[in-house]
């Protein structure tokens, strides 16, 4: 075999050659220092190129793109863009969460929760949802440690969102499947003295872990999203149009920011 040309060498580095060609080029590389150096340089430039664009994957998704992916009309996109600009001001500034006493914020988040009652009003729904009697759960997963205050559990068959019939019919469950999250169940809580619902999602990705979405009625004014972190749990909280929201999980902050953008869009429509 002749000395490999650049395109064959690159195809070799990309794993695109058949076994016989691979073996031939491997033989050349073993005996030709100049070719080895060439292969190393090409490998480095490829790694540099990947590194140059990896950053994009870690950026929070703009809300307008989530809206576009969900088929939002122009009006919704416009509204979303305004919200996005507001959040971008927060995100685009200095590392705003640095200096926040994360533990204190987190404690405030937790203290806001109280004992759940038997019947609650769900956001955007005048009806009440009856809690399954005696359906208390005990576990040592982080949502429970986070709260330690939920006492009731909506009866749903795990993995079967269609059995979500204990909640008001017009309560639309946020769809987080694009993020690899499956809805598992809901709990009733009290947040800021108001009834709230905690939606629990899990994923098969051990690196991400479960995510909890809390939705509550709130008489307080709108509040831009805030980030807090404590004991390896990241929490995003915000208020919008009479509702208070929280998103908590052990996953990294960027992943949660993306889910938050999607949730904010979905909740606008709920």
């Amino acid at each position, binding site marked *: 075999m002749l000395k490999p*040309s*650049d*395109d064959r060498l*690159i*195809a070799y580095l*990309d794993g*695109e050659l058949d076994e016989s060609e691979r073996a031939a080029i491997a033989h050349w590389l073993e005996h030709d220092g100049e070719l080895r150096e060439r292969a190393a*340089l*090409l490998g*480095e*430039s*490829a*790694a*540099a*190129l*990947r*590194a*140059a*664009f*990896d*950053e*994009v*994957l870690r*950026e929070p*998704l*703009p809300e*307008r*793109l*989530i809206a*576009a*992916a*969900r*088929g939002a009309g122009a009006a919704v996109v416009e509204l979303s863009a305004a919200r996005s600009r507001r959040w971008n001001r927060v995100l685009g500034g200095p590392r705003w969460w640095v200096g926040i006493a994360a533990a204190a914020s987190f404690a405030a988040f937790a203290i806001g929760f109280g004992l759940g009652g038997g019947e609650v009003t769900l956001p955007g729904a005048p009806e009440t949802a009856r809690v399954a009697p005696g359906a208390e759960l005990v576990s040592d997963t982080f949502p429970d440690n986070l709260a330690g205050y939920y006492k009731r559990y909506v009866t749903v068959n795990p993995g079967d969102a269609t059995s979500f019939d204990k909640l008001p019919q017009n309560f639309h469950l946020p*769809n987080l*499947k*694009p*993020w690899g999250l499956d809805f598992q169940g809901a709990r009733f809580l009290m947040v800021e003295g108001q009834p709230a619902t905690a939606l629990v999602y899990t994923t098969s990705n051990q690196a991400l872990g479960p995510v909890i979405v809390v939705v509550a009625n709130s008489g307080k004014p709108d509040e831009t999203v805030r980030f807090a972190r404590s004991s390896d749990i990241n929490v995003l909280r915000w208020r919008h149009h009479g509702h208070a929201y929280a998103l908590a999980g052990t996953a990294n902050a960027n992943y949660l920011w*993306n889910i938050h953008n*999607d949730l904010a869009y979905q909740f606008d429509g709920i």
Partner: protein
Amino acid sequence: MSVSVSDQLIAVLPRMRRFARGLTGSAVEADDLVQAACERALSRAHQFQEGTRFDSWMFRIVQTIWIDQLRARDTRREEAEDEGMHVGTDEPGRRAEARLALQEVRNALRELPPEQRVALLLVTVDGLSYKEAAEVAEVPVGTIMSRLARARVALQAKLDAGSGLRRRTQDAEAE
């Protein structure tokens, strides 16, 4: 609107943004491009063939819209500011230098012909096979292979021209 298409769109958004960022060299233009691609995908969801790769279909849509835009402009784009990746002036020197190296890589990519850029972004950045990239670009595999080779050699030459680039890029990767 197909719900499943929406879900798949959201899942592939980060990669579409990366692909579009590489094509356009601009964060804003890239997001505009991705948004247009989402809208087109939803309006033509019936054209998606079940059993084929959704991400490849989306890359093809992004590429098609971008090529159309390039043709419409009929001009070489000016040096675009890379809004999403600008170098912070208050960063520590070593980190700023590393980011500068990555910016040089992006600039080098931007100097390549569009078809070479597409090949590099699909194969080298996104990890598609030559066959998959050929399907996205709608060209034979051999064409992808030769475009890729020319692109990799040209990129290598441009990076070699940057002094100390290799060390700074390694720093950036380490971060």
